[in-house]
Every structure is written in C-alpha cells, then in structure tokens.
C-alpha cells in the first residue's frame, strides 16, 4: 500500500490541513489546560525576572516543557481515533503531519508572544538570537512530545518521560556529556549565545545539535507512527493488488 494510500499528494495535504485544524480545535477547547500551558513558561520566567540571562533561560526551558507536554497529550488523545481513521482510509502521514503542524503553529504563537515579552521587559543584546532559541526550542519540544506520544503506551509513562527529559535538562551540568545528550541542550547553548555573546555560546554548535536532534526525533516519530497506524493487518481483496 503506498504511503499516500493512493489518494494523491494534493489530497493528502488537504487531509493534513483538516487534521491540523481539528487538532487545534480540540486543544483550544481545553481552556484550563491551555491557560496552564501558557502560564508555565511565564511562571518560570517570572521566577528569575530580575536576571537577564536566567530569566530567558528559564523561559526557554519552561517553553520546552509546556510545548512538549501539549504535544504528548495531543498525541495520546489522538491515538485511538488515528488508528480508526487509517482504517477508514486516511493516510497515516497526513494525520501525523496535521497534528504536528497544529502543535508547531500553537508553539510558534506562544514563542512569538514570549519573544515580545522579552523584547519589552529585558535589556537583551541579541533579540534575534533569543528568537532563534525559542524557535528551535518549540520545534524540538513538539518532536519530543510527539515521540513520547507514540512510544509511551500509557499517559503516566509519558508524563514521567517528560519529567525526566525536562528535569534532567535543568539539573544536568551544562558542560557534562549527559547534558549534551539530552534533546534541549541546544536551547541552553543558543540561549547563552543570545545572552552572553558568541564567545560564550556557539551559534553553529547550537543549531547543529538542534538539527541533528530534530532529525533523529522526526525519523523515530515517522517510523513508529507508521508502524502503529499503518498496520493493514487484513488483506483487502482488490483487483489492483492481486496476490
């Protein structure tokens, strides 16, 4: 069975748009959760509001945690229905792409808002750098959350996974190997670049780490989602695919 399910790429992109719209509707309806999601990075930011560097770092990590949580729970909530929809004829990738696209849009809105906050509230030497930091963090967070969503069978396991990833990122010593291996290392590095300058933080290192992490996570999400959704356990008797 072809990846697009034979319905054509144009149709699948339209499908992805519909899936994305529905994901957003579902997310935006959860007012309380949404409020908490928005508040989390803000709370982290306010905790260190007096210090330029720390406030932005905490904001970024808070954003990472909030967006990855949203992505995880969006994936978990969609698991059953996505399986059922592929049976009805949806292609697995338009469902996943739609969902991830919606989360990226949500995350981008959040980061945009926070970037504005930082711009007015903090004397930052490189606002563009902060923007890059928040943007990469958003992308990585969506992928981390989506990855946990497809890997963790139960919500508790996934939530704990999120705790571990984010918590470790906070506590691991920045120059240590452990910190480098974690997905949000680039968030810290790019934050340092934006706040303290290129002599302290490497833009290229940060972007490279982010790109590599994103690629690995994207691959994992793709492979695992396809396996979970495109089961196709029964043979469909079709003249076009005679066995």
């Amino acid at each position, binding site marked *: 069975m072809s990846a697009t399910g034979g319905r054509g790429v144009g149709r699948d992109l339209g499908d992805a748009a519909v899936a994305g719209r529905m994901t957003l509707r579902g997310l935006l309806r959860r007012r309380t959760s949404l409020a908490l999601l928005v508040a989390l990075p803000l709370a982290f930011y306010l905790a260190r509001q007096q210090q330029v560097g720390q406030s932005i770092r905490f904001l970024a990590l808070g954003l990472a945690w909030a967006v990855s949580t949203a992505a995880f729970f969006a994936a978990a909530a969609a698991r059953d229905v996505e399986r059922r929809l592929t049976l009805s004829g949806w292609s697995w990738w338009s469902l996943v792409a739609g969902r991830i696209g919606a989360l990226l849009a949500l995350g981008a809105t959040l980061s945009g808002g926070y970037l504005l906050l930082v711009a007015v509230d903090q004397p930052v030497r490189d606002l563009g750098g902060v923007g890059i930091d928040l943007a990469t963090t958003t992308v990585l967070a969506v992928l981390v959350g989506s990855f946990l969503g497809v890997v963790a069978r139960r919500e508790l396991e996934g939530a704990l996974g999120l705790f571990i990833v984010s918590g470790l990122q906070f506590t691991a010593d920045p120059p240590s190997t452990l910190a480098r291996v974690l997905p949000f290392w680039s968030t810290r590095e790019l934050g340092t670049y934006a706040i303290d300058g290129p002599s302290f933080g490497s833009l290229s290192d940060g972007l490279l780490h982010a790109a590599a992490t994103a690629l690995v996570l994207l691959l994992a999400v793709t492979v695992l989602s396809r396996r979970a959704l495109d089961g196709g356990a029964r043979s469909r*008797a*079709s*003249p*076009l*695919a*005679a*066995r």
Partner: protein
Amino acid sequence: MVEVNVPSAWLRGILDLCLLALVASGEAYGYELMRRLEGSGIGPVPGGSLYPALLRLEEQGLLAADWRAGDGGPGRKYYALTPEGRRQLDVEADTWRHFSGALQGLLTGVGAGTP
C-alpha cells in the same frame, strides 16, 4: 462439425445455465469461459453478454470470485461454483432435460437431419 446458426435469443436464455455448467467443470476467468463456450459447440457468445451474466451470477451468490495474480499484469478474476450455485445447476439441468426431451418429441420427423 455442422455449422449451426444458433439464434441469439436462445443463447440469451441459456447463458446463465451454460456458465454454471462450465464453471462446474473447473474454475475459470471470463475470457477462458468464453473460449470454452465457443469450443463446446453452443456457439460464439458476444463478449458483451458474458460479463453482465457473470456479475449477475456472482451477485446472486451462485458464483464466487477470487482475484489471482496474472502473469505479469494485474490480476484475473476467477469464478467458482458456490454450494447454492451447484444446487441451482442441478435443478436447472434436470429442468432442461425435461424441457428438451419434450421439445424433441415435438420435433420428431421434422427437419433435414431427421434422427
């Protein structure tokens, strides 16, 4: 073999029965059935009548279809008799024998090749 011109009206009437009988002697796909039909002496059946008949028999549950990989191309649809089809064939075969016997009686002494 004597060249006979079988009126198309007759063929239309017995096509279903012929197809059931042909499939009873072995599963086959559409074109193969057409060849067997021609070879049987019944006469050439227009390709146009064949497929509506096959579809009808399948829809009525008398034939079961199975797609099989063709050589190098898309699959071929093979037809086989179902238990209901077998029963229908037996019943209609008996009916036919009775009918043709009666007709035979009517036609004794008529025609060029009188038996």
